[in-house]
């Protein structure tokens, strides 16, 4: 479990990720990957050991939802719920390729039923509900199932006095579910508002990319909003903006670093420090007797 060791070493965490999971990328041994940012090649084994952060330039490679959760929660504490919840095709959407087929392929490729994992866990000794999105699954777009799973996760947090943690990555709303998908923005935002009323903490971690209807709903409504370095974060996609304003976008536009400068994020936190930061933030926001205290 190289990635886990790496995190333990860098962070001196008192908890360790689950071992033996699918933490490694889906590539055979001995394969080399090319870094999107610095274009250098990296041995896959080295990349895993570095937590899938480029050892040359610090570029953060994508993680699966399972990897995300493993990296953040106390060892062995994650218990998924709503695992079977799956999207349907209420619009019978079949422009270009049938939505039903896209879903099936995504399920086969990821071994997931939908673009998000949700469940109970411990994080730094705090009781949490954690959710993580998986960009491989139809771009982690939010349809009825993703919206429902997020809403349920927030409702479990509310019912059980847990903190909510959501790791986002999404192209936005899932257009193949039309207006039902748009309305998940309203549904999830309403659920966040209820959790906030109850004084329970919610921390989001925005990873590359977090766009459209996901940014414009639950993702940015957290008490503390963190982001990974280099993540693209925004509402409109860069292509649409370029078409509208008829000019090239400035360098770094919609990057986590730029959004931090523009006051939109609490901080940009390198992957290696995320679990530690989350745990510390929860120490502050969950200091009530029920919430437990990680110290």
């Amino acid at each position, binding site marked *: 479990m190289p990635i886990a060791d790496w995190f333990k070493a860098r962070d001196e965490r008192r908890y360790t990720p689950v071992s033996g999971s699918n933490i490694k990328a889906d590539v055979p041994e001995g394969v080399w990957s090319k870094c999107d940012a610095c274009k250098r090649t990296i041995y896959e084994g080295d990349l895993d050991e570095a937590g899938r952060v480029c050892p040359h330039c610090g570029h953060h490679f994508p993680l699966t939802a399972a990897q995300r959760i493993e990296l953040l929660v106390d060892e062995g504490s994650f218990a998924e719920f709503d695992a*079977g*919840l*799956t*999207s*349907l095709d*209420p*619009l019978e*959407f*079949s*422009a*270009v390729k049938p939505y039903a087929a896209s879903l099936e392929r995504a399920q086969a490729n990821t071994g997931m039923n939908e673009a998000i994992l949700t469940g109970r866990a411990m994080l730094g000794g705090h009781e949490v509900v954690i959710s993580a999105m998986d960009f491989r699954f139809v771009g982690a777009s939010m*349809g*009825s*199932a993703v*919206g429902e799973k997020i809403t349920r996760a927030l409702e479990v947090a509310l019912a059980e006095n847990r903190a909510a943690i959501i790791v986002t990555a999404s192209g936005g*709303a*899932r*257009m193949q*579910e*039309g*207006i*039902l*998908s*748009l*309305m*998940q*923005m*309203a*549904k999830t*935002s*309403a659920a*966040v*508002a*209820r959790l*906030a009323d109850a004084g329970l903490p919610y921390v989001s971690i925005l990873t590359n990319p977090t766009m*459209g*209807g996901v*940014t*414009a*709903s*639950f*993702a*940015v*409504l957290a008490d503390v909003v963190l982001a990974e370095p280099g993540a693209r*974060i*925004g*509402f*409109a*996609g860069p292509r*649409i*903006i370029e078409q*509208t*304003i008829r000019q090239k*976008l*400035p360098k770094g*536009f*919609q990057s986590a670093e730029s959004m931090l400068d*523009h*006051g*939109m994020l609490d901080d940009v936190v390198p992957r290696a420090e995320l679990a530690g930061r989350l745990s510390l933030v929860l120490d502050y926001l969950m200091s009530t007797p029920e919430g437990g205290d990680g110290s």
Partner: protein
Amino acid sequence: MSRKYVMEFERPLVELEEQLVALRRLNLTDNPDLMVEVSALASEIDRLRHETYEHLTPWARVQIARHPDRPKVQDYLAALFTDVVELHGDRLHGDDEAIVTALATLGNRRVVVLGHRKGSNTKENIKRNFGSPHPDGFRKAMRAMRLADKFGLPVVSFLDTKGAHPGIDAEERGQAWAIAESLALLSELRVPIVAVGIGEGGSGGALAIGLGDHLIMLENSYYSVISPEACASILYKDSTRAADVAGSLKMTAADLLRLGISDETVPEPIGGAHHDAEAVFSEVKKRILAAVDSLAAHDADELVEKRYRRLRAIGVFEEGA
């Protein structure tokens, strides 16, 4: 009936009508063959008009929703409401003219009106960014929402936008943040919220002031997660194929009613609301008042709970194993 602006789907009909006008300018009494032809053309026009307007395609409805003569929020404010007091500004950055907020009286109800505001001409449209708000606009709307909440005034919201503005400054000032905060705020407002889709219902920019207790859609208004052009551009790499996807997206008033998203549809005159705006105004006013009356019967806690249940129920999925 103004014909200044011809929508794509009306073009065959308009061409025949122009032929008929031309034929009629000839001396028909001298030419019985021509009289027959005119008569045939007239019935063909009747048939085509019937076909065109009685079975409007989703794409045709999108065009009607975008028709420049279609009544806009300022027309509804002038026709339905009295004692209108416009409120400006977000107290933070600007006064986005793409959003109007006002205190206004509808019949015996004092309410807060929100709306996307398009221009009635090009100059106005430029000032109002064609009805596409920046974050300032949503934050201005949030101010009005809080005022409504504080003083117990129902909210009536008119939806008519292609969507939130996609631009550098809009992104940098937190377009997504403004929309999200607006949604959270509306979800807990302790007053009735009635939304009326009067034209375009473009994605998050429409929803940001559209979340509510009751949604009334005009027959030719639409509400969609994405514009048909953007959808076509993603699917076909060709935005001109918007007509093909407009149906797939299930974005018409009829679709919304079927999907349980809207509560009622206001029928429009043949050809669209701009053909008889007064009739539409009168019907919309009646429907809004009925909805507000019905919602006002609930106390605030019930109202907020009911709204949550309503949102909570949206979505089609399977529990699985």
